[in-house]
């Protein structure tokens, strides 16, 4: 095979970087993923239950866990607190003018529920639940949707008994005109096509326009953030801003679960009067106050104490 001197040199360079025992593939870079590495990523659960780990949890166990970790947003009965997503109800509404898509009314497979809770919930602390906890909470959400009885215990075997009410409405599209076979010969000339109609106004854009008088982001605290950036922030607060956006805004942006809204000076004055040491302690260790529960580090235990303190500095300086 012909090789220019240049590509020869490149090959040598690659070999210097990658240890020969680990090289994978034709380029000789990277390393072969071990079964353990793959297991860390391969967490999807299939409709037939493949992927479910060993373990189990009952509706009764799920009740307490759900009330502690989920009800503040999704409501005690899955009815949704404020504008947070509803998880139950909506049966029989799918073909009406106001369809309510919930786990019970819409989702075709219970596997998605297990997977979603395991992967993404609780919102402020995803993947913090044990497998048994996910089984129990999944069972409880199914119970809230009247899909299982109150003595149900969910595990790999009983998963097979769970039938979601809307499953039959998911099927391979049987309309004749949806099979898009690519034209390979004697095809129509695209330059002769005429656009007969276009659809406009489907995506609401008003709230992204300046001067529209509507908050410019979805968190509803644009005014607060805009105000905050005008104030000269300390170095700590500047460092804390992105941490705040990542870990704290979910509650403190709009006042979810009783959290004092960042930028609302009235809500913060008494709190600030306690002194930074107390505020930091409360934010790092968590506490139960008059308004609700402030989870330790906002539920994000991966944050260093200093990062949380920086976020507190940002919140305090934005709320004076």
């Amino acid at each position: 095979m012909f090789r220019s001197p240049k590509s020869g040199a490149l090959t040598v360079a690659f070999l210097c970087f990658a240890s020969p025992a680990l090289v994978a593939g034709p380029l000789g870079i990277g390393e072969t993923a071990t079964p353990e590495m793959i297991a860390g990523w391969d967490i999807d659960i299939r409709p037939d239950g493949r992927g479910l780990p060993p373990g189990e949890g009952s509706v009764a166990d799920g009740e307490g866990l759900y009330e502690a970790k989920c009800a503040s947003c999704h409501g005690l009965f899955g009815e949704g607190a404020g504008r947070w997503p509803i998880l139950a109800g909506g049966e029989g509404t799918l073909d009406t003018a106001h369809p309510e898509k919930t786990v019970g009314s819409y989702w075709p497979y219970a596997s998605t529920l297990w997977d979603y809770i395991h992967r993404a919930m609780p919102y402020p602390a995803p993947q913090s639940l044990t497998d048994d906890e996910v089984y129990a909470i999944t069972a409880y959400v199914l119970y809230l949707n009247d899909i299982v009885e109150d003595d149900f215990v969910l595990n790999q075997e009983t998963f097979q008994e769970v039938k979601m009410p809307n499953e039959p409405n998911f099927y391979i599209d049987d309309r004749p005109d949806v099979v898009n076979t690519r034209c390979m010969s004697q095809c129509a000339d695209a330059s002769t096509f005429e656009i007969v109609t276009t659809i406009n106004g489907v995506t609401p854009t008003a709230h992204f326009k300046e001067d529209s008088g509507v908050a410019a982001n979805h968190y509803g605290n644009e005014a607060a953030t805009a105000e905050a950036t005008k104030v000269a922030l300390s170095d700590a607060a500047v460092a804390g801003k992105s941490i705040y956006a990542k870990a704290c805004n979910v509650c403190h942006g709009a006042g979810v679960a009783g959290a004092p809204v960042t930028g609302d000076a009235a809500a913060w004055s008494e709190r600030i009067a306690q002194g930074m040491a107390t505020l930091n302690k409360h934010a790092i260790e968590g506490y139960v106050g008059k308004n609700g529960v402030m989870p330790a580090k906002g539920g994000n235990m991966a944050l260093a104490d200093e990062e949380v303190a920086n976020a507190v500095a940002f919140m305090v300086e934005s709320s004076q």
Partner: protein
Amino acid sequence: MSSIRIKAKERAGVVDVKALMKHPMETGLRKDKDGNKIPPHFIQEVVAESNGAVVFSGSFNTSISKDPYLSFQYGGKKGDKLTLSWTDNQGQKDAETVDVG
């Protein structure tokens, strides 16, 4: 399965009750897809009793939305039996009893 879900928890002598009643709460003013009026079907009476004594009662009507959510407090203690029941304009009824926790 009962149409009623109740959570009743006592703290310092006050029982905090939260309940959800599954009910269509049709006003009688809506039309279905074919333009026919959907008959009225709504809860008219809700009663909560603790150990047999009425602690809450209410007259509901069509201004209350589907699957009504109810929250109230009364003086009581752990272990009390709390029964919540509803009766609708079509004479249907349901009731559910829980132990105050």
